[in-house]
């Protein structure tokens, strides 16, 4: 038993028998996560895929139970790390004095308001589950590139969240409305219209009163370093086409009846200058469901369900600057309009759509696009995959960042640390019809090969440094004290403010801030109050 017997019993009383476990068998599985080996290496530790082992794992089933657990953590001075569906190292504890609160039992879709286009979900509703339910109303939701199996609540409140449908569904931070939040001291905070004294409802995230969205999640989210989110309202969008979703056959070679009003375009823009111009032309027209730049290899990957199949698509992979656009419509007239616009852009820019001529994807591609499953194809080459960059800016800035990153990546390709994508592996998507853009550099490595893990970690650090030196903005993996303290002085000393927020909201330093920021300390090393 890792917890003191009395402490264990108090936790158990809070969440029920069978929902607390501090045995090594349960807790060790929570120490493991994807890419943990890389973060361990960056922290000067052995590159193993395990973090510290949590003292216990606790499964609350309601906001009240979460509140009780957090208050007990304050009482006993134990840190807490919350997770929803749990993908990624930021779900792991950063000290041996932390417990994991696994929110799996909080899995209700609380409300679907089809008229006002929002829904309210608990942490363990997956994107695919939510989408299946809202499709019944002809609606769609935003899902991050991590895939439909992850939690919309986690993405909306706590993570950076670009996705393949971002042109039409935005970024996770722009989708969050009312929020229910258990603060690190155990108090409950209700944000937006859900916080109104009279007639509270979930429809607005930023009022009444000053918005706390920036504090709550900012751009990249606090990854549970600032408390636990127990319910959230997120925006809904019209489903882009007919919701008839007819799959047949068997996994993985499902056949799919492509909806009548759906069309894919893959065009080689030849270079980044033209890509920048063309992607903006497409997005200005507000017609795309998906609009992404992918490297040639990445285009091969999204069309394949195995590496062997991917290798059969070499002809597609030869493109220099492929732009992938999907248009979809609910009526024939809308579809014809969107096609006419695309035809005009193609003609104007002397572009050719290779789909249906040089290449015809399997129909299941369209099913995966509609169900936001394409990001997971990044794993099929080596099994290991992570992204550097993470810029959120203009298309030009994102492409500039991608260009500057190429030589750094090539260096580590030469060293045999990362798989060879010629250094050009980049995914860039528009947000909200070109309102802004996101770029990241998916990098394939072998998580079981220490040389590869170390080299990939070094490449990530180099990529972050380039972002800093070349003024490209804060990338994805500016997480934890070391990186915030490095970037902060170059970015309006944001790290000082971030730390002040942490100290103000978490006076006892209870929320595990390993992937966020930790409070400042005085000369004696005590937490600044």
């Amino acid at each position, binding site marked *: 038993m890792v917890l003191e017997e009395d402490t264990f019993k108090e936790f158990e009383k809070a969440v029920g028998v069978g*929902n607390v*476990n501090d*045995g090594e*068998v*349960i807790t*060790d*599985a*929570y120490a*493991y*996560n*994807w890419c943990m080996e890389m973060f361990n290496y960056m922290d000067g530790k052995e590159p193993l*895929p*395990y973090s510290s082992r949590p003292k216990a794992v606790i*499964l609350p089933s309601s906001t009240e139970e979460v509140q009780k657990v957090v208050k007990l953590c304050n009482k006993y001075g134990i840190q807490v790390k919350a997770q929803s*569906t*749990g*993908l990624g190292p930021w779900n792991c504890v950063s000290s041996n004095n932390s417990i994991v609160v*696994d929110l799996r039992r909080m899995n209700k*879709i609380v409300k679907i308001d089809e008229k006002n286009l929002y829904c309210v979900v608990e942490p363990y509703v*997956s994107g*695919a*589950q*939510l*989408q*299946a*339910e809202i499709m019944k109303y002809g609606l769609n939701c935003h899902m991050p590139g*991590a*895939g*439909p*199996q*992850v939690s919309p609540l986690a993405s909306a409140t706590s993570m950076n969240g670009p996705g393949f449908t971002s042109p039409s569904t935005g970024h996770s931070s722009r989708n969050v409305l009312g929020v229910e939040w258990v603060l690190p001291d155990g108090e409950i905070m209700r944000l937006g219209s859900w916080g109104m004294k009279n007639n509270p409802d979930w429809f607005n995230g930023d009022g009444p009163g000053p918005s706390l969205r920036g504090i709550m999640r900012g751009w990249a989210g606090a990854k549970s370093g600032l408390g636990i989110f127990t319910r959230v309202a997120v925006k809904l969008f019209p489903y882009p086409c007919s919701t008839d979703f007819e*799959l047949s*056959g*068997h*996994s*993985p*070679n499902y056949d799919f009846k492509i909806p009548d009003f759906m069309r894919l375009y893959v065009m080689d823009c030849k270079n980044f200058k033209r890509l920048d111009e063309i992607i903006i032309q497409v997005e200005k027209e507000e017609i795309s469901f998906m609009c992404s730049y992918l490297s040639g290899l990445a285009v091969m990957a999204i069309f394949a*369900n*195995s*590496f*062997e199949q991917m*290798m059969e698509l070499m002809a597609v992979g030869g493109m220099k600057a492929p732009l992938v656009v999907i248009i979809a419509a609910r009526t024939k007239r809308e579809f014809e309009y969107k096609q006419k616009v695309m035809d005009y852009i193609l003609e104007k820019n002397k572009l050719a759509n290779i789909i249906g001529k040089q290449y015809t994807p399997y129909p299941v591609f369209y099913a*995966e696009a509609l*169900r936001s*499953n394409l990001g*997971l194809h990044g*794993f*099929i080459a*080596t*099994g*290991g995959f992570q992204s550097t960059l993470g810029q959120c800016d203009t298309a030009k800035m994102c492409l500039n960042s991608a260009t500057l990153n190429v030589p750094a990546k090539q260096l580590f390709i030469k060293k*045999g640390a990362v*798989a*060879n994508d010629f250094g050009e592996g980049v995914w860039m998507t528009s947000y909200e019809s070109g309102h802004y853009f996101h770029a990241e550099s998916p990098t*394939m*490595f*072998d*998580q*079981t090969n220490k040389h*590869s893990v170390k080299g990939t970690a070094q490449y990530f650090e180099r990529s972050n440094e380039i972002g800093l030196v070349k003024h490209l903005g804060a990338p994805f993996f500016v997480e934890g004290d070391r990186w915030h303290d490095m970037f902060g002085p170059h970015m309006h000393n944001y790290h000082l403010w971030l730390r002040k927020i942490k100290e103000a909201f978490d006076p006892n330093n209870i929320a595990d801030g390993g992937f966020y920021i930790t409070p400042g300390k005085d000369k004696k090393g005590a937490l600044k109050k």
Partner: protein
Amino acid sequence: MDEEEYERMIQRCLRCSICKWVPQIQVKSQKYATICPAMDEYNFHTYSGGGKIILALSYHLGRIGPSDELRDIVYKCTECGGCAVSCKFLNTLEPLEIMCEFRERLVKDGCGPMPAQQKYIEAVKKVNNPYNEPHESRKEWLPKDIQTDPNSKVLFYVGCTASYRRKEMAIATARILNAAGIKFRLLEDETCCGSPILRTGVKDAFLESMNKNLDAIEALDVDTVVFTCAGCYDTFKVDYPLHRKYNFEVKHTVELFDELIQDGKLKLTTEVPLTVTYHDPCHLGRNAERYEEWDGDVVELMPLVNINIPKKPKRCGAEGVYDPPRNILKSISGLKLNEMERIMEYSYCCGAGAGVKSAFPEFALKTAQIRLDEAEDTGAEILVSACPFCSTNLQDAIKEKGSKLQFYDINELILMALGMDIKKVKEKAAEVA
């Protein structure tokens, strides 16, 4: 799975949680989106397919040692293989095979199987069946009016569960074979196929059972072995050839009877005005896909990127037996088939498999009740399947839950469509029991 492959795979779980759900593009509702019974019951990630891969790695690295807690978690899995289907939609990991290998390792280290499983394994060693029933009463299910032919080329391998516990399945099979004019024989000295032993990781005892059966069958002039038990069928079809080749054909009764119906040799003339839903047994569905032999090379295409040449077949459950039972049901006049949400390769498990029914009966029942909810939601009045384990567990759950559903084995529906009085078959089963 050899040592090298096991070690390579246990280091590669992405912890993506896809193993907890049906394939993502098959999610049709929130209620029926999950695939893993152990996760649905126990909630901690450790119980999932991915969680157990992590445990295998932790055990391999010595981070955790053998313990009762480890054994309980590893054995609280029906080995239904749903996790593997979902994982392999894009990935190349083998969660189910890792699980089987991990259990074998635990057994070698004295940390398995569960005591209740050890008990039935001893029973198999002693009396050739896991129910500890007398071996000499194995054929007592056989009604006197059934015609068998000791010289037939077709062998009906009855299996322990149909012989001792689900006699109505054995009787129905024999009657249909007689009705179709298919001469068949029984093994004089049938012994357990070994499936319940194999799934617990006790390899030596399984191999003993396998060799007894294959020796006995190969001593006869038989070209086809027919099974009504999905577990025996899967074990003969998929597991035996990994250890010993044989030269006869294996067929589940749904395959044989579907052929006979298509060929007009089995005429289903009586109307059966029922609304049914069909439960795909894991052993007849996704797990009944044979391993394709692959003798290729893993070639390093570039640093860190390997490719299998030729392409290595991925066993994703696509070759399970899905159409024959549905064809049979569709051949029955007046019968309406309402499908559940989770079917075929992404069917939800009944909860009985891999020794769970004996070691963790409550877990088995709760899993079956989840499946009953799904069956009830189709509006069907009858739940039908083709496996004696599923039959037992689902019927137990119907009683426990007080469900209005009735359970029938698919062969019983065929008997009804042949104009036979199903009550008499049930009564006969009770009588011979």
